[in-house]
């Protein structure tokens, strides 16, 4: 038995951007269903983190200065108008969570709004979305999009994990809020961030943009990914107790490269004894998840040396994602929107990580913008009866050849290795990209030719396919950008090339294509 539902706006995903979109769409008068793979409130990387938001008072010169600084960081690929919009929306809407989120003191008699703790933030967004009238379906992963005879995206099909039943939701508009792709690196909170929405959109013909800008990295104890607050002042040692020559964190790529190369040889130990004194008594109040992996191992975080690992952050702190066709977050597929980390964040982050503040402001703002726009588009189409629609997913659903068992775990490992392997990722060149591309093309052929499953197994198989597709777009985009810019570093093209200061799209599933683009909309 399939569960059948109908709504105006279907939001796929349950993180920050989904929350803000659900609130905006419901406030605009639309019926809203949020279908999340996990539980809206704990799903995704926000709940375990502590997002700061880009936060500048509405003063003309302050905002202009902030936008000028951010445009310089974006290295030619940002858009000042988009930056101004997200500053405005974030300033206006973040405080609206006050009935559900216990904003703290700013230490000067006012309220501190810009930084929020993830578990309380996501709990608040859930409460606010429910209060606004959205219906939330937890543990309802989407599998494929539906398309009607007019070529409009008309909803999605998925599987309800607890009920062990398939679902089909018909909607007037659909918003992809499925987050970025962490390539199963083990980064805390990212197990569900497998790029599912990007695979679904690509099957509808949507391109991606900015996929070459990454990866970035998060340092943690080798046995558990945690938040990184205590590490900025760390001293690093090799297993023999000799201090390693690691450029400080401000050095960016050089810092990560030195750590990654040292980790190839032998375990790297961190010593946090020089972390700020003021941090010690309050760490567990600011980041309550951080001490647990130490206390439960009997390790004193600020005294003992312990092994560390760099966890790749995939596209989450990169800037790549689904290409947007207009300023209301529509994609090129009619009826389909993309927001948050599922979408490209180049408009506001350009070639550099929007990590933390800018990406959070983007998630909030793109959610608000798309939520309202999808609601209006849906309400204008409410009178039409739903036209017949069919699923447009292919990989894992209709294999080209005979069905064969797929070893998903081996595929995850290979994808994580190709995207995040320390041996090649810090010194990429043409040959290294070509080798990785061949490996990944082989995995894709295997999946497209032989992968087939149903129910919860199909959810897993589609995740596997999305990981491989995301890795292929990432590496094809990086190979095509023959320069270094922002988060994109190449050993064979170590400098930025002024003639390449434009965005670049990547598209396709069986064959991957890249094409340069100029800014289409201001």
């Amino acid at each position, binding site marked *: 038995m399939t569960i059948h539902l109908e709504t105006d706006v279907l939001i796929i995903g349950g993180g920050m951007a989904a929350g803000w979109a659900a609130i905006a769409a419901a406030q605009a008068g639309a019926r809203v269903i949020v279908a999340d793979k996990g539980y809206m409130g704990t799903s995704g990387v926000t709940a375990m983190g502590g997002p700061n938001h880009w936060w500048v008072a509405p003063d003309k010169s302050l905002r202009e200065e902030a936008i000028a600084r951010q445009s310089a960081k974006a290295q030619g690929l940002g858009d000042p108008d988009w930056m101004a919009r997200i500053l405005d929306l974030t300033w206006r809407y973040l405080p609206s969570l006050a009935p559900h989120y216990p904003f703290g003191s700013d230490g000067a008699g006012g309220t501190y709004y810009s930084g929020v703790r993830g578990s309380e933030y996501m709990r608040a967004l859930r409460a606010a979305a429910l209060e606004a009238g959205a219906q939330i379906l937890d543990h309802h992963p989407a599998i494929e999009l539906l398309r009607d005879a007019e070529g409009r995206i008309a909803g999605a099909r998925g599987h309800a994990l607890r009920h062990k039943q398939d679902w089909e939701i018909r909607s007037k508009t659909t918003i992809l809020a499925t987050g970025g792709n962490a390539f199963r690196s*083990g980064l805390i909170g990212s197990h569900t961030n497998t790029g599912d929405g990007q695979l679904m959109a690509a099957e509808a013909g949507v391109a991606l943009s900015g996929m070459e800008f990454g990866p970035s990295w998060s340092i943690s104890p080798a046995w558990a990914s945690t938040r990184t607050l205590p590490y900025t002042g760390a001293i690093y040692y090799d297993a023999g107790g000799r201090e390693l020559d690691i450029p400080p964190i401000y050095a960016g790529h050089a810092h990560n490269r030195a750590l990654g190369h040292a980790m190839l040889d032998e375990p790297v130990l961190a010593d946090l004894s020089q972390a700020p004194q003021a941090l010690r008594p309050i760490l567990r109040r*600011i980041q309550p998840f951080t001490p647990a992996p130490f206390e439960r191992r009997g390790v004193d975080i600020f005294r003992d040396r312990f092994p560390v690992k760099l966890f790749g952050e995939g596209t989450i702190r990169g800037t790549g994602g689904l290409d947007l066709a207009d300023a209301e977050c529509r994609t090129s597929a009619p009826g389909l929107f993309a927001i948050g980390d599922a979408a490209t964040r180049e408009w506001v982050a350009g070639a550099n990580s929007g990590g933390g503040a800018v990406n959070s402001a983007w998630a909030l703002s793109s959610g608000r913008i798309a939520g309202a726009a999808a609601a209006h588009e849906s309400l204008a189409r409410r009178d039409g009866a739903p036209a017949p629609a069919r699923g447009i997913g292919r990989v894992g659903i209709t294999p080209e050849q005979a069905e064969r068992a797929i070893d998903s775990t081996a595929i995850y490992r290979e994808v994580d290795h190709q995207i995040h392997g320390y041996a090649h990722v810090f010194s990429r060149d043409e040959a290294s990209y070509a080798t990785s591309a061949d490996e990944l093309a082989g995995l894709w052929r295997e999946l497209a030719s032989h992968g087939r499953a149903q129910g919860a197994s199909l959810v897993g198989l589609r995740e596997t396919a999305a990981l491989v597709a995301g890795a292929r777009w990432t590496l094809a985009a990086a190979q095509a950008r023959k320069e270094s810019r922002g988060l994109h570093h190449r050993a064979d093209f170590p400098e930025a090339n002024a003639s390449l200061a434009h965005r670049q799209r990547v598209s396709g599933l069986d064959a991957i294509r890249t094409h340069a683009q100029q800014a289409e909309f201001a």
Partner: protein
Amino acid sequence: MIAQIITDKCNNCAQCVTVCPTFVLDEGPQTPMIARIEACQTCYMCELYCDQDAIFVAPDQFNAEPGADPLAHLGVIRRDHGWDRPDQTGYLDDYRKLGPLLGEGAEIAARRYQAQRRSV
């Protein structure tokens, strides 16, 4: 990875089954059951949402540790978050210090690095 649900403490409300973002747990007759341990990402959300302090997540995210001793740690995650308090006003007053402390640590490392360069 999630290691134990303490039978004596669990009231079988199944909140952990609901909130787990990776659907590790199934409902069970006395307590929920750890049904898909390989999907556990060691995020501690089940502990945070358990108002009976009945769940213990062992610290290794790559290997199950069924024998780890939970007693000293039950409820710590929830108390550190302030979720055991009836009124959460003011419990995030230190949160504004996160950004400045990140910056201070980075400055410490940068100064140390500069000093070492000069001494070479």
